[in-house]
């Protein structure tokens, strides 16, 4: 158990070192530099060849995305990370630039309680489905998205926004499936499937 | 002999009385009596007609109007009166105004007069009367369609008048017998030139083409048939289009020899008949394709009616005895099954008030009797063996192929395929599938309409199982046996068709299938919403049947041809004439006296020059 913890911490340290060094003058570096000039409020770095990252404050996310959409034509995915301890959601917009074939991760942080974000449907209409899914599983409200509401899940799961970390799964499943949910044993900490 | 006159004018007088005594029930009773007198008289005359023909003449305004009831005219008159009675019963429940009764019965007299008259003046008089009656029925509902119909029919009628005038000028006689003798004599002598015969033929072709609805002149049919009280359309398309066909038959009788000598022969087909056959073939194909792509019930049956009359023209065009038998038989079968279709449509529109396919659906449970009548009509039109439709189509196939007209026979095949397609589409869109919510309180059709339908359904079955009855009549009509065999069996030089045996074996086959059906597990009735929608549960509001543009793929396949339409062509022509009329008025009556006096001087100049030249 402790072995993998050690590995995790090493990775975290060397990630910071890369932070201080100046942006490498590769194609991705030039790209990030160009974007940062246009949007000073953003810190961006080149993670590796054809992979770029940006951290954007929540209130400027929409302007930055408009800016980025010139080079990064495609919105691949909107994924959400639920940092329960910091009480924040981290929303990751994964963009892909067809022209330079570079993958960009744009990260923002918003508070967990009544999380709100402006929709990006006006830039990429495809965002509608990703936002609806995010809304269904995490309860983030995207203003401007016409079709928020129950999407795939059964209505009763929809109210619970199941993928939030504070959703206690086991009692809910026991409530639904009752006696045939028989393999859970509080005493064990891990389970043999 | 004035029984003939009683038969002829009974509908007219009944119509007039119905118009005068405009009370709810009396009007219908008078109408039905008036419409049933002809069939009575004709039945009475059946025995005498087969031996010798009955004639009666009347002098009106210097002309002698002769009427003759020969076997041919008896046949056409009987068809018209059967359809007439069905119309009367239909109108008893669908039409609420005496206006309809008056003009429907006027057109009924017109049709009977056309069939019975034995001279050109009477023929022209009743032809105009028939057109006028049917026109007024359409005028009440839609001005544009009615004017389109009237202009085309009047052009037809007047071209006939000019042709009659030419014949009168050449032969000096107006009644059919003398004209026939004179023209047969003239065929040898050849005093009427080739050009003039061609002119007379084209004029008659236009006249009867318009009334029968041949392709270039069929434009009025969809509008006139649908903008009308549907039970009258049963008569309109069942009997009136037969007047056009009777005209072509008349053409054969009167000018057959002359046309043969004048226009000659093209690889052993009579030229004038060959033209007629090709017109018929094109009508069949074009009208059937258009019928398949229609979205409105009435339009579909209108184009289908034009197509079916195309078959009859084709049969006449073949020119051999068999072709004639096939065509005349199809006249009968088309009259009965098409009028049955129109009565069914009348019932649907009366009960649901809707005419487009997308608003209808699932009426089979609500109107079972109308559905069975519709099914009989479907079987007959599609040409399923035990029905009359098949017998006449069979004769047409025999005639077309044995007369070595292959491409024309190909047109029949394609036409019958298309007929099958649009008839099944009608069944699917109207009777089956989920019922739209606003059609839930639909009741069965009223009793008189049902009687009308039954009157038309019985002959479909009777002549289907025993086509020999009709072909036997034709043999007596033409003198020699064209179609051999007894009541139930048709024998032609190239093929046989035993209708009774086919029906018996069909029943035998059905009984075997029924046995297998009974042997299996007892069936449990489930509603229409319990269908396999890949697992999705289905409720009332679902509309799972494709009622709207059912044949979109066919429309895409025919995209190239559908760009052109005869309708737009005629609209542009009409506007052209109206603009020309305006230009003429501005040009001539421009209102200042100087130009008028200039006209005077011009006339003086002409007179002066004329005198000197």
């Amino acid at each position: 158990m402790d072995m993998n913890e050690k590995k995790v911490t090493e990775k975290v340290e060397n990630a910071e070192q890369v932070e201080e060094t100046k942006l490498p003058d590769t194609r991705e570096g030039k790209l990030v530099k160009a974007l940062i000039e246009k949007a000073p409020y953003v810190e961006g770095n080149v993670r590796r060849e054809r992979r770029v990252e940006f951290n954007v404050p929540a209130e400027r996310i929409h302007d930055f995305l408009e800016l980025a959409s010139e080079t990064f034509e495609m919105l691949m995915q909107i994924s959400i990370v639920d940092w329960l301890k910091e009480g924040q959601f981290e929303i990751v917009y994964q963009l892909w630039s067809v022209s330079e074939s570079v993958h960009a991760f744009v990260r923002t942080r918003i508070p967990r309680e009544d999380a709100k974000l402006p929709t990006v449907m006006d830039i990429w209409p495809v965002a509608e489905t990703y936002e609806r899914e995010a809304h269904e599983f995490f309860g983030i409200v995207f203003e401007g998205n016409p079709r928020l509401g129950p999407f795939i899940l059964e209505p009763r799961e929809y109210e619970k926004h199941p993928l939030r970390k504070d959703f206690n799964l086991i009692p809910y499943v026991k409530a639904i499936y009752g006696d045939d949910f028989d393999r859970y044993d509080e005493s064990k900490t891990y389970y043999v499937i | 002999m004035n029984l003939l006159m009683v038969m002829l004018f009974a509908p007219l007088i009944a119509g007039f009385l119905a118009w005068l005594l405009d009370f709810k029930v009396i009007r219908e009773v008078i109408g039905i009596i008036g419409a049933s007198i002809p069939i009575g008289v004709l039945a009475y005359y059946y025995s005498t007609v087969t031996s010798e023909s009955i004639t009666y003449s009347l002098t009106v305004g210097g002309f002698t109007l002769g009427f003759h009831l020969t076997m041919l005219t008896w046949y056409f008159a009987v068809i018209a009166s059967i359809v007439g009675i069905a119309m009367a019963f239909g109108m008893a429940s669908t039409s609420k105004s005496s206006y309809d009764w008056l003009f429907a019965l006027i057109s009924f007299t017109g049709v009977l007069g056309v069939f019975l008259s034995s001279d050109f003046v009477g023929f022209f008089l009743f032809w105009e009367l028939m057109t006028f009656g049917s026109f007024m029925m359409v005028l009440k509902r839609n001005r544009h369609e009615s004017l389109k119909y009237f202009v085309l029919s009047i052009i037809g009628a007047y071209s006939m008048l000019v042709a009659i005038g030419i014949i009168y000028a050449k032969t000096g006689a107006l009644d059919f017998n003398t004209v026939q003798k004179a023209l047969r004599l003239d065929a040898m002598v050849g005093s009427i030139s080739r050009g003039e015969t061609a002119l007379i033929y084209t004029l008659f072709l236009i006249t009867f083409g318009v009334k029968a609805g041949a392709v270039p002149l069929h434009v009025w049919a969809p509008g006139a048939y649908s903008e009308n009280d549907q039970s009258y359309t049963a008569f309109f398309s069942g009997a009136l289009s037969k007047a056009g066909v009777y005209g072509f038959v008349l053409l054969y009788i009167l000018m057959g020899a002359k046309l043969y000598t004048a226009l000659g022969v093209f690889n052993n087909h009579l030229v004038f008949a060959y033209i007629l056959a090709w017109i018929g073939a094109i009508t069949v194909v074009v009208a059937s394709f258009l019928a398949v792509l229609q979205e409105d019930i009435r339009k579909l049956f209108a184009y289908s009616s034009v197509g079916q009359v195309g078959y009859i023209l084709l049969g006449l065009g073949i020119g051999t005895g068999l072709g004639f038998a096939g065509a005349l038989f199809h006249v009968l079968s088309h009259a009965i099954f098409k009028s049955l279709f129109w009565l069914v449509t009348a019932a649907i529109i009366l009960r649901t008030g809707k005419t487009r396919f997308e608003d209808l659906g699932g009426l089979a449970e609500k109107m079972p009797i109308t559905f069975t009548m519709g099914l009989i009509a479907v079987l007959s039109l599609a040409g399923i063996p035990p029905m009359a439709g098949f017998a006449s189509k069979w004769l047409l196939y025999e005639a077309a192929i044995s007369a070595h007209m292959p491409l024309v026979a190909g047109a029949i095949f394609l036409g019958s395929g298309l007929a099958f397609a649009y008839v099944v589409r009608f069944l699917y869109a109207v009777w089956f599938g989920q019922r739209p919510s606003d059609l839930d309180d639909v009741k069965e059709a009223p009793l008189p309409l049902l009687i009308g339908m039954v009157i038309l359904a019985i002959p479909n079955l009777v002549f289907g199982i025993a086509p020999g009855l009709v072909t036997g009549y034709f043999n007596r009509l033409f003198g020699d046996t064209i179609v051999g065999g007894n009541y139930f069996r048709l024998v032609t030089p190239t093929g046989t068709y035993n209708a009774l045996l086919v029906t018996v074996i069909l029943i035998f086959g059905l009984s075997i299938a029924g046995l297998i059906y009974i042997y299996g597990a007892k069936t449990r009735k489930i509603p229409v919403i319990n269908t396999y929608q890949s697992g999705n549960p289905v409720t009332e509001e679902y509309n799972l049947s494709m009622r709207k543009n059912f044949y979109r793929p066919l429309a895409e396949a025919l995209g190239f041809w559908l760009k052109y339409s005869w309708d737009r062509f005629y609209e542009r022509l009409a506007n052209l004439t109206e603009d020309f009329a305006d230009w003429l008025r501005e040009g001539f009556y421009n209102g200042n006296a100087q130009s008028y006096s200039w006209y005077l001087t011009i006339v003086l100049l002409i007179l002066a020059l004329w005198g000197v030249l």
Partner: protein
Amino acid sequence: MNVQYASLLIAIPLITAFFVPLMKGLGEKAIKTYVLIITAIQAGIATWVFEEVYTTGKPIIVMAGGWRPPVGIDLYIGPFAALFVLIVALVSFLMAVFNFRAVKVEPIDKYAMLFLLLMLGATGMIATGDIFNLFVFMEITAITAYALTAYNKTGEAAEASLKYMVLGGIGSSFFLIGVALIYGATGTLNMAQIAQLAGNINPTVAQVALALVIFGLAVEAELFPLNAWAPDAYQAAPHPVTAMFSAFVVKAGIYALARILYLMSAVGTWKNILHLLIAMATLTVIVAEFSALRQRNVKRMIAYSSVSQVGLIGLAFALGTQAGVDAGVFQMINHAIIKVLLFLGVGYVAVQLGGAEIENFRGLGKRMPLTALGVTVGSMSAVGIPLFNIFWSKLRIILATVDAGYAWAAALVLGASVVEAVYYFRLVHAIWFTGEGERLRESAPLVAIMLLLIAIIVAIGIYPNYAWSLSQKAGNDIFNVAQYIKNVPLMGVGA
């Protein structure tokens, strides 16, 4: 009642016309009843004359002042003249009834006088047997027609009557020159004698004389280029006068044209004139029909239709065959009845609803059903629908035309009548199936007249034998010039 009383037909309207100013003081209603009585008397005499001629079979010859022609002027009332004098009288009588309601403009006595003189002129033109006398009566008709057209005192009426006067004047002056030439060549004015001597006049003089006479009468008879005045005159004139115009004034012109045409049939270029007349008549029909197609004013539309039907009559007369002439006369009778009915109906609607625009006619079926029925029956028979009277005469004309070898003319005329069917049935549709309105009270006498006319139309439509026999006798009278000459007792001047 010996035969000479027939001259009363001319005398009565003449004398009574000049008594009218004396009665000016008695008020409008009295004058109108006075006109009514006069026309009634005229109709009575006309029926007596009609009985006389058709029972004895011999024409009535009245010699003015007992002198035998060619010195004296004679009235020749043959079968045609008897028939048409009766029609003139009856139509005038009906229009006199219509006057009560239709004519409101002030100087009613002048109107009455002109009304009677118009009737006189027409009767005279038909009954006379002398060319110059024909010219005199033509002038009387023409002048009263100019005055009556302008009677409504509107700008449009004045302009119409001016145009009518200009053209009419030119026409009648050329007619006078023609008559003078004929008189110079033959030395006589009597029609019968002219017919005798027509053969041996030197050809060019005869030809020019005939051309000028025909031209003069053609203006009155509304043939193609010369009828430009007709539609405006018809529309502008008061309603009863329009009916009289189309019913008998034009007919008198056409009759005169036909009479002289057949009298001079011995002239060399007769055939060419016939061809020209046929061409002009066909063009009349076509141009009139086409210009009626997009008319907003119903009265003007029916005026055009009347001009075209008169053209049809002209065509029938110009064929030069016995069948053609009979058909032409039959058409004249039918056309008179229909046009009276139509103009009566349209006039009454114009009076009642103010103006003859087509908008007033929308929903007429609900507002004035009987008038609507009258107009509908009139228009349907004008189109030539079988159960009405024009069908038989149009059929006769077409058969005669094609028989005489002019198939192209027949085709064009029929094409034009298709156009006629279109605009008449647009009117019928507008009347019965569009618009709405509540039922108005219709005046009893006019409705009675309309129903009477409808009855006559349908009667002739269903049983045309009697009317056809009348027109055959009348047609024979015009066509059979030899019989005409024999009937007139001549003084034997010249060969």
